[in-house]
Structures are given as C-alpha cells and as structure tokens.
C-alpha cells in the first residue's frame, strides 16, 4: 500500500491547483461520476480550493443510492424469512426501504449478516446446508465481477442453497442518459477509475465524441482528482473533447480481461431502473438465463411489493447533478442520516451524506445544533 501519502501531498496539490487557477478563464461545470470521488472532494475540501469558475457537480455513481426502492423492499422481504441468511455489504443495511431497513429486519429476528466479500456468503452457504443464503449483489462494474465469480464458484462446487439478489448497473449508459437530458449542465466528466480498471476505457472515446464532452478517467485520492480536473479544464479551455486516462497506474485501455470474461459468462445486459432517476436502457446486468437457479428473485418469487418513495426526497435530482444536496428543502431538517428520506443521505458514498457529515458549517439550510443523531451502524465491539 504505497501512494496514500504521495497522493495527498500538499505541495503537489498546490502546484496542480496553481495550474488550474492559471488555466481557467470562464465558468465550467464538471461532473465527478462516482460517489467515492464526491466524498474525497468534500472530505479533503478540494472544492473549496478550486477556482470559483470550476463547479463540481456530483454524479449518479453511488451504488447504494441508485439501487431501486423495489429491490430494497424485495431484500427486506427475503431477509425476513426464517429459512434465509441474508448477506450484504455493510452499506446496504442502513438504506431505507418502504418503512424500514435491513437493520430493523435484523433487530426483529431476521438473520442479516454483514460480509466483506461475496465469497464469504458462499462459505456461509456451505456451512449452513439446511438454510437458504442470499447475497445482495449490487453495484457498478467494480463489484459485479466478484459477484459473478461467486455464482461461478457456487455452480462449480455444487452449492444449491446460494443465490444472488442482483441489481447491478453500468456507468456508460448513465453518462449517455445524463447527456441526453435537456436540463444537463455537465460540460466534462471525471470518469470513475475503478470502473475503468475493470472495463477499460473502450466505451468512452465514442461517448466523448457523440456528446462533444471531455471524459477524464480519474482516481480517488486528492491529487488524482485535481489532476482529473486539471486535464478536463485544459480540454474545455481549448475546445477539445476526448477521453483521457489520468489514472494509468490502475487503468489499462483493455481493462481486466479475466473479469470481463467472467461478467460476460454469468450476466447479461438488461434495462435497469435507477433509484430517483428511472429506467435507463441497457444500463444494468442480470443473471444469464442459464444461471437462473442462482437468481434470488426467481427462487423466492417475491410479489406484492408496494413501494412508496417519500414525496419530499429530491435525491433523484441530486444524483443527476441538477441540485446540490443542501438545496433540497428537507436537507438537515426532515432528512438526516438518522431519519433519511433517501439513500443519498445514508450511503457512505452518498452526496447528501457527504454534505451533512463534512459541510454542516457552510450549508445554509442545516440546523445550527450538531446534536441530530444518526442511524445505527454495525456495532463491532473492540473494547
């Protein structure tokens, strides 16, 4: 693990910032696609250091935030069954479904477990042959390959009590969808480096050309993001629009061929609903027909889901970069991490959570006292 200090070096950051300040001559709106980038920007205060003309718009790339309410409600329903061990990454336990979340299911007696890898869930299935083990398979191109690998392993090992509740989404169709919106203000994208480390950069030159928009593949450390901004601004000022890879230490043009092959074997592309945004054509994956027996939706045939999104929640607009979190009337008042209206307020990559956690001094609609408590997280005793 090198690079942590190197990519947070204040002197190098100053140089990049000086270059950006010297380059900018007029206002530009750049969207960082990934919620991890958003949190890095807000946590390190990068947006405070950039020129006023450079506006960072937060994008839809938080996997927790865009998982549709209907899928969350299906997860809650499946997790409530006494014969089920429901396994999930920690983030998903706090995401509100219609009326409750996975933490509440657990406190009501459901066997909901936090795992750190889908292969941990497969091990739980091996160890509990008399019970059904379901893994909540959500996320972008980053989490899809290990989830695909787990299904591959399950079949190879003949494990039949394991299934995936799948809601995987793909970034390039989301970029296209954003650019097609008449309200779109985005003039350049900082593409998500980890997604490209899997999928490569092949889909981006065509997008950059079609929408005349610079796309810079960018990492997650502060210097990565400043370098992404620097390159995007340079293209904008020159009137250019092409794909650039500013994250070559992790991203090769061809991506990760083994991961891509695994995806192609296990999943197939499908239309997918994004929470707060709606259905985006060809923007998701589902299990291929030949792996249907591992599809939790098929295995449990969950029906009678009646979803109800809170009317006051504007997370869809936040996810599309149409408003900043604190511009939502509910931000910090009726919507806090303790009683969230939408997933963007509880996800560790959510833009609303970033503003609430790190920017309460400077966001105008926030309550003046810091005493608003937040939701329970996994308690893991260490002392």
């Amino acid at each position, binding site marked *: *693990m090198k690079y*942590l200090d190197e990519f*947070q070096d*204040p002197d190098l*950051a100053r140089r990049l910032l000086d270059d950006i300040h010297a380059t900018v001559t007029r206002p530009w709106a750049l969207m960082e696609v990934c919620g*991890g980038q958003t949190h890095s920007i*807000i*946590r*390190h*205060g*990068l*947006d*405070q*250091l950039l020129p006023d003309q450079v506006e960072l718009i937060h994008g839809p790339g938080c*996997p*927790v935030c865009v998982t549709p309410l209907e899928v969350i409600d299906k997860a809650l329903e499946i997790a409530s069954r006494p014969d089920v061990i429901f396994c999930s*990454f*920690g*983030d*998903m*336990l*706090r995401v509100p479904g219609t009326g409750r979340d996975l*933490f509440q299911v657990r406190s009501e007696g459901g066997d909901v477990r*936090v*795992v*750190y890898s889908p292969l*941990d869930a497969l091990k739980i299935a091996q160890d509990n042959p008399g019970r059904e083990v379901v893994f909540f398979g*959500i*996320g*972008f191109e*980053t*989490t899809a390959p290990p989830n695909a690998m787990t299904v591959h392993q399950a079949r190879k090992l003949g494990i039949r009590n394991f299934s995936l509740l799948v809601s995987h989404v793909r970034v390039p169709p989301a970029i296209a969808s954003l650019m097609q919106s008449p309200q779109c203000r985005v003039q350049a994208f900082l593409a998500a480096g*980890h997604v490209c480390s899997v999928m490569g950069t092949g889909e981006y030159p065509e997008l950059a050309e079609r929408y005349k928009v610079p796309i810079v593949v960018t990492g997650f450390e*502060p210097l990565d993001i400043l370098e992404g901004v620097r390159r995007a601004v340079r293209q904008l000022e020159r009137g250019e629009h092409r794909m650039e890879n500013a994250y070559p230490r992790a991203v090769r043009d061809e991506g990760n061929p083994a991961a891509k092959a695994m995806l192609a074997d296990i999943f197939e592309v499908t239309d997918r609903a994004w929470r707060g945004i709606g259905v985006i054509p060809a923007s998701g994956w589902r299990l291929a027909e030949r792996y249907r027996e591992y599809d939790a939706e098929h295995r449990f045939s969950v029906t009678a889901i009646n979803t109800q999104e809170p009317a006051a929640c504007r997370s869809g607009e936040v996810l599309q970069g149409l408003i900043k979190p604190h511009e939502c009337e509910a931000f910090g008042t009726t919507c806090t*991490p*303790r009683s969230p209206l939408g997933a963007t307020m509880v996800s*560790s*990559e959510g833009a609303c959570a970033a503003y609430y*956690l*790190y*920017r*309460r*001094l400077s966001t105008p609609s926030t309550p003046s*006292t*810091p*005493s608003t*408590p*937040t*939701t*329970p*997280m*996994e*308690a*893991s*005793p*260490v*002392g």
Partner: protein
Amino acid sequence: MGHGGGGQLSAELVEHIFAPAFGGRVLADLADSATVTLGGARLAFSTDSYVVRPLFFPGGSIGDLAVNGTVNDLAMSGARAAYLSCGFILEEGVEMSQVARVAEALGAAARAAGVEIATGDTKVVESGHGDGVYINTAGIGLVPDGVDIRPQRAEPGDVVIVSGPIGVHGVAVMSVREGLEFGTEIESDCAALGGLVEAMLAVTPDLHVLRDPTRGGLAAALNEIARAASVGVLLQERAVPVPAEVANACAILGLDPLYVANEGKLVAFVPRAEAEAVLAAMHAHPLGAHAAVIGECVDSHPGMVVARTGLGGTRVVDLPIGEQLPRIC
C-alpha cells in the same frame, strides 16, 4: 447494536434514558469516571463492561482490556487506580482453559498497573446467550488535591495533545475478527495510563481535560468534550499521528482512522502556557513517547469539531454513529 457503539446513539441512550431515570448530580457530568467525596477523601469511581470479540487479539485480550479500560477511566480524572472489582459472565460451554487464560491475563494486567482486584462475582448464562466471556470491572482511586479534570473545563486557547499514534487497537482487533482477517503486523496498544497521567500532573496539576479515546475513536472523544464545554475544537488533520498500517487498513476497508477505537492512548486539553512542558513530560514517558499536538480549542463553532484538511480545506468531524461500516467499493 448501534446504541452500544460509543457514538451518537450511545450518548442518546445515556442522556435521555439512563441519566434522567437515575438522577444524581455526579452522573450528569458524564465523564469517563465520577469524582465523589467520601469521608473527606476525593475518589474517582468508574465501571465498564467488556464484550470484545475475539477474546484474544494481537497484543492483548479481554482480560487486559478489563483492567486497563477501568484503570484508564480513573486516570482520566487524574486518579491512580487502587482497587478494582471484577464480574465475570460466562457462557455455558466456554472452555475452562479459555477462562483460565483470560483470568491470568487479567491478573497480570492488574499487577502491571499496580491495582488490586478486591472483590468479584461470577455468573453463568445459558449457551447461546453470550459470547463466551463478558467481564465487568469497577474501580476506585484517590484524586490528588488541586486536580480538577473534567470535559467541562475545556476552554478556548487550550492546546489539544494526543499521547501517540491512533487507531492501533481497533485495527489489531479487526485484523483477527471472523470474516475480516487481513494480514497486518500491528498489535493492540492496550496499556494502563496511570503512570503517564502522573508524569503529566507532576508538571502541572492544571490539566483541563483528559479522555481516553476508546470506542468511537478520537472523533468521539473530541466531540464529547466540545459539547460538554460548549467550545469548538480545531483539528490539524496532518498532525494526527496515524501509523501506516492503520492508514492502509482503513483505506482498504473504507474507514476513517479518527473513528477507530484506541486503548492505551489519551487526549489532553492543556492550557497553552503549560503545553510545551506537558508535551516534554509525555515524551519522557514510554507511553507518551510519540505524543503530538493535534489542534486547539477555539471559541468559534461551539460544540463542533472541525478539521483543517491536509490540503488546506476544512471539514466537520462529527460524533460517530455507532461503529463504522466498510464501504461497498
């Protein structure tokens, strides 16, 4: 579970349920230990329960924690612990050899801290109703004359000092927890801080606040002090000592070292005029050899902790919720 995590929900539980129900002037201070007067003597009095998993981890065990945790709570009032009580809650089926190992570790930690186990209790609960071994300890110790260390005494101008690298204990425990094993050489920094506090008090009895940043980490400790005294805390993020192993583990898991638990570290609010001497005294003690100034107490943003980031921006450092959850990607 979140109500036991040492964060906002824990604070809510105490402030809204326990404190009103129990009443009492002393409890209202919500310090690590209570300072009470009995027969003319000023005593520090504290209790804590230990439910760590696994029972043994690199650099320590639940037995060490059960001694050092309570000894340190007393030390945060300036008291040297004298006597501890020790209550064991054992789960039916736990190996007696495990219990013996825990007891030996507990006894050794008590001898190292110079404290006597004066009374105890044992209960056994049915299988499935516990995690093998739970321990509760309570302790008392004398508070020296002229010493008044409480969170409420923090005031603008105070210098904030941490006694050494943070996050070590939490990462050491996480590194061996079922489902989260990852290779790291790091060992828990679990230790009794009474001697270090004595060395600091020898320089000046006018330490304003001491806190051991256990569950909830440094962020929780600083927030609790900021709120108790209605002052702001300005943290210099780059000045906070975070070992590379802790930083790397946190980066992998998507955790913030400021929120990771410590045992054997303290944070001190010291009058500016005394800070240099206190820091020198800490550096001269083995448990404070890497002590560092990490920020200051300010009169802006009362009740809040704000960090100046390494690159020059600012961010709020909130009271944690329960414990952190690793990110999805």
